[in-house]
């Protein structure tokens, strides 16, 4: 059996772990071949990749959507061709009404933002000021995580926390480094940095260190629990990150795809929860992602 996997983006750390998870798991399965495509963050490209998969006669398709809302059209295309389709990680907007032979295995972006912000709120004792580092504007992760952050900060127990500024650093380390440096030079005094992902959190840490801020005086939070992030956490620089089980999601997606392809039935929705990582439990996650 051939499974076509349409990834939203190749050059992202967490997605790389997900991708490798699927590839490695695929290799352990006899007679299963995995074919990966890179959507480069473009929904139209991803749509075409799905169509090309269908034309090439794959047995099932796994898709990590560039954006949740593009799921409906892709869902329709696959259903029309009768090819099994599994959405991984990013739930399509029609997740509650998926047609036959389609299923979702993944997580809820908002949960990541909620977990990291709750922890930050708690360590600040419900008051202080924060800055928010957003991912590329308009992407599912940026929207979901930022929204959750704001929702948490709006809760009564965190309502004394002020958001000084929020800007985008496009998911990347160097832009975050520059952005935070600019903030510091503008005299912004913040007690925490809430970043949409770990790379940006690491950039913030570098900027803070360069400006001579003591890392104990500031809470830095990210999402993904990448290798670099865990190392930074062990060094005492990063305070919060959120683990998302990439390998688990990938494995779940492949299993579901194979089952549908073989005519078995699967759960329509499988949510794999995010897990909070802090210095206390960081050791448990050292080798997971």
């Amino acid at each position, binding site marked *: 059996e051939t499974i076509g996997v349409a990834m939203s983006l190749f050059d992202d750390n967490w997605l790389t772990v997900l991708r490798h998870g699927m590839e490695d798991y695929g290799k352990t399965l006899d007679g299963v071949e995995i074919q990966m*495509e890179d959507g480069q963050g473009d929904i*139209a*490209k991803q*749509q*075409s990749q799905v169509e*090309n998969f*269908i034309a*090439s006669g794959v047995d099932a398709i796994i898709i990590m959507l*560039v954006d949740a809302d593009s799921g409906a059209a892709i869902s329709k295309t696959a259903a029309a061709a009768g090819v099994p389709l599994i959405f991984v990680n990013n739930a399509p907007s029609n997740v509650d009404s998926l047609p036959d032979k389609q299923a979702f295995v993944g997580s809820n972006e908002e949960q990541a933002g909620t977990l990291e912000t709750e922890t930050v709120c708690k360590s600040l004792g419900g008051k202080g000021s924060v800055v928010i580092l957003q991912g590329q504007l308009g992407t599912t992760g940026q929207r979901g995580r930022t929204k959750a952050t704001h929702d948490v900060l709006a809760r009564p127990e965190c309502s004394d926390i002020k958001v000084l500024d929020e800007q985008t650093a496009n998911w990347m380390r160097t832009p975050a480094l520059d952005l935070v440096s600019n903030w510091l030079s503008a005299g912004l005094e913040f007690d925490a940095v809430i970043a949409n992902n770990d790379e940006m959190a690491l950039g913030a840490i570098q900027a803070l260190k360069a400006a001579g801020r003591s890392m104990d005086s500031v809470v830095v939070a990210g999402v993904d629990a990448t290798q670099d992030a865990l190392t930074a956490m062990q060094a005492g620089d990063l305070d919060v990150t959120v683990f998302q089980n990439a390998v688990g999601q990938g494995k779940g997606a492949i299993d579901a795809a194979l089952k549908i392809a073989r005519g078995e039935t699967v759960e329509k929705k499988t949510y794999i929860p995010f897990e909070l990582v802090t210095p206390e439990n960081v050791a448990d996650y050292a080798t997971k992602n």
Partner: protein
Amino acid sequence: MNTNVTAGDTPAGMNTTRRRLPPELNIFFVLIGIALVFEVLGWIFAGQSFLMNKQRLTIMILQVSVIGIIAIGVTQVIITGGIDLSSGSVVGMTAMIAAGFAQASTWGRVMYPSLTDLPAIIPIGVGLLIGILAGLINGALIAYTRIPPFIATLGMMVSARGVSKWYTKGQPVSGLTDQFSFIGSGIWPVVVFLVVAAVFHIALRYTRYGKFTYAIGANVQAARVSGINVERHLVKVYVVAGMLAGLAGIVTAARAQTAQAGMGVMYELDAIAAAVIGGTSLAGGVGRITGTVIGTVILGVMTSGFTFLRVDAYYQEIIKGAIIVAAVVTDVYRQKKRKV
């Protein structure tokens, strides 16, 4: 006075054959060559035909229709000696704004609750207008302030992308009406692409608009002295390019049944590449729509071919870059050979 000077004795018309062999024939052969390579490799590695698959043949063009529509506008711009970096961003901007007027009332989060279920003509009109507006700004800046087209359209590229993100603060615009989505369904994008190509093929070759476009690109000073209102014509050309980018935005949104701020990112590069592969010269004055169509199809064939042969995604880009270069090298080489 004696009249029979030796000069005019090569009768004009002797060598009309040269005109009949269009230069894009070369790149057409390159396209055929690439397709055949995939065909052969297909039989060897996948045990099936690459070309004898109606579905795939459609997708090959379908997936590049949007690029193709932009590329047609960009080709005209490049023929005048300019460049349009903004087309991809304008696609995103028009997609967002047009989609806002194309939402069905059944959708949960509509932008304009009082403006749902409108006939498709309204979002289409809005999209084209937005494109025209962007083109007008580009054209006016280039023609009347004389800044380099690169900068004017770079500014528009950055700003238009900003507008798409700002318009809904990053939220996608979804739940589009069936009537609107229809333009993006099935092979309609291909139809739109080919109709646009035909129209502008004719416009460039058989109308005054076309002749002026080439003249400006060949020598803007001479064009001016020959009485062409260069400024006004440039504005027209950029408006057309903007309008086509707007059209492309509409088709993209209709096809994806959603509009997002990130739509069309880097399409400008693919569009310029399609034009240049098809023989359009960035120095201006040279280029044809047929060539651009072939260039566009080459991009589509490559994408489909890679998936078909299950080329590892890691290698696809490396190979894609090499094929683009090889295609143009072959073209240049063949053209040189024929010349001598």
